[in-house]
């Protein structure tokens, strides 16, 4: 009994350590958003933002076009996640469950494509979208984001699907399912954790992006939040308080997204798993 209690205590202690390491920078970001100027960069670290101020948040939100930036970011993120999940799941199905010529080449290409640094591609991508008239368009950046999300998504989902034994689908088909039905009813729920991981990855990549949005977008009403966050750095230096306040606001949707998604994952896994 005590052995288990010790083990439990050990795990909890380790958990606290992990929490400390992950949360301290976050705490610092949030706290700095509330600090007055002289307390932000000070010789003796100011642990608590007291006396605090809401000025940084006000500055962050008062930026022109802030609400439009929010709207644009949300649109782009949702579009990218939905489309990438759909396309990636289909492609991963093909790569994991079917035999066809070129399968090996496909897998290799998916990996190789991820090796090219974004910075090396950004200008050719811009020039190409320019010729297609798609610069300064949200559709243009959604498609660009898809390009950087898909290889990873397909590859990861393929890994998850491969891990699930085909016998499950076969059993379902014996009982009267079509292949597509088996994919939809059996495979899809089991791959849920992989889908979640992919969705979160897509979200973070799109939400955090600066370079793609910055180079491809021009009009003030078409910017995204990544650019808004960078706008606090001018040639007069960086407004740290506003950046931290802005970052706090900026990170909230990501955390909310996870909390929403997490419950679905749990429910998907516990919905009637029976030992067979």
């Amino acid at each position: 009994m005590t052995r288990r209690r010790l083990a439990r205590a050990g795990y909890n202690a380790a958990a606290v350590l992990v929490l400390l390491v992950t949360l301290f920078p976050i705490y610092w970001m949030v706290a700095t958003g509330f600090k007055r100027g002289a307390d932000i960069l000070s010789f003796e670290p100011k642990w608590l933002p007291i006396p605090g101020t809401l000025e940084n948040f006000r500055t962050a939100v008062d930026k022109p076009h802030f609400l439009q930036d929010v709207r644009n970011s949300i649109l782009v993120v949702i579009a990218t996640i939905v489309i990438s999940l759909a396309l990636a799941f289909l492609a991963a199905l093909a790569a994991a469950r079917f035999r066809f010529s070129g399968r090996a080449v496909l897998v290799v290409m998916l990996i190789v494509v991820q090796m090219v640094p974004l910075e090396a591609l950004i200008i050719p991508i811009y020039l190409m979208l320019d010729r297609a008239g798609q610069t300064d368009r949200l559709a243009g950046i959604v498609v660009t984001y898809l390009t950087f999300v898909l290889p990873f998504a397909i590859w990861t989902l393929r890994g998850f699907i491969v891990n699930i034994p085909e016998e499950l689908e076969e059993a379902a088909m014996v009982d009267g399912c079509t292949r597509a039905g088996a994919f939809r009813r059996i495979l899809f729920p089991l791959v849920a954790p992989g889908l979640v991981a992919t969705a979160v990855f897509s979200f973070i990549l799109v939400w955090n992006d600066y370079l793609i949005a910055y180079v491809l977008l021009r009009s003030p009403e078409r910017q995204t939040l990544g650019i808004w966050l960078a706008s606090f750095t001018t040639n007069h230096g960086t407004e740290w308080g506003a950046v931290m306040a802005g970052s706090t606001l900026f990170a909230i949707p990501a955390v909310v997204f996870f909390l929403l998604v997490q419950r679905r994952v749990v429910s998907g896994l516990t919905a009637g798993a029976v030992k067979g």
Partner: protein
Amino acid sequence: MRAVETRPPSSRRRAAPRERPPAPRRPGARARRLRPLVPYALLAPALLVLAAILGFPLYRLVSLSFQQYGLKELFAGRGTFIGLRNYQDILTDPFFWTVVARTLVFATVAVGLTMVLGTLVALLLRNLARPMRVLVTAGLVAAWAMPTLTAISIWQWMFDFEFGVVNWLLTRLGAESFQQHNWFDQPLQGFTVIMIVVVWGALPFVAITLHAGLTQVPAELEEAARVDGAGAWQVFRHITLPVMKPIFLILATLSTIWDFKVFTQIWVLLNQRPSREYFLLGIWSYSESFGVTRYGKGAAIAVVMVILLMLVTSFYVRQMLRAVGP
């Protein structure tokens, strides 16, 4: 083996004996003919997007690497073909070999740390009670959700010369020499800081994905092994690891690719002006392309980087191909 309780409701009557998959349930001549097209149809949308956006730029990147291409050529839209000279310049430059070695060492250490720590955290998550697990996962996601530039800025502050909390703490603990200490003076210390930032940012994703993969490991097998007297490490090595192998391989390969390409962390931590001792391949490529606007050479460095990466990950790729089959 996990089976789902809910059966798909089906009113179709099956008279045919059980066939071996992947035979369709409603065989028709036309369906049979179209079947080989199914994988291509599934792949087509995704591949279309990739080909449309990446096809031309990738071709452009490679062709740029064979040209002399500065700003003038960029605006005119045409460069001068110089064959392999960019590659020659790079490969005969001793600096190149230094940068390659540096990148390899950095990536190896980073990947190692990320995978080991990620696995430990994933295992930890599995062993926690539900409320604690949700808390730690939320912490991980919050760290992952933090905007990259903000995260780097916070770490930069923590290691700041005069305002940093690390120096403050060390001074408090008695190490007077850290009163005002520049962590980026010595590349070894500087890369330690960079490594911390990179691993901190990469850990959540690896840990969460591994944890998701761990849920696919049959608990009964592990239980059985433990009942038979296997220690924790043996259970991990013989039961957990083999089941997780595909996911490990994927994550390790991805981590290798990402850590090889590290750019933003170094660029921002060194205030967009890293000195040559901090150059990794990604930084060098960017510096050549946009710093000194030698796009041709920058492209060549990027191509060399991809080739190197392919060599480095070839082991994983071969494993993966073996699993994929003919």
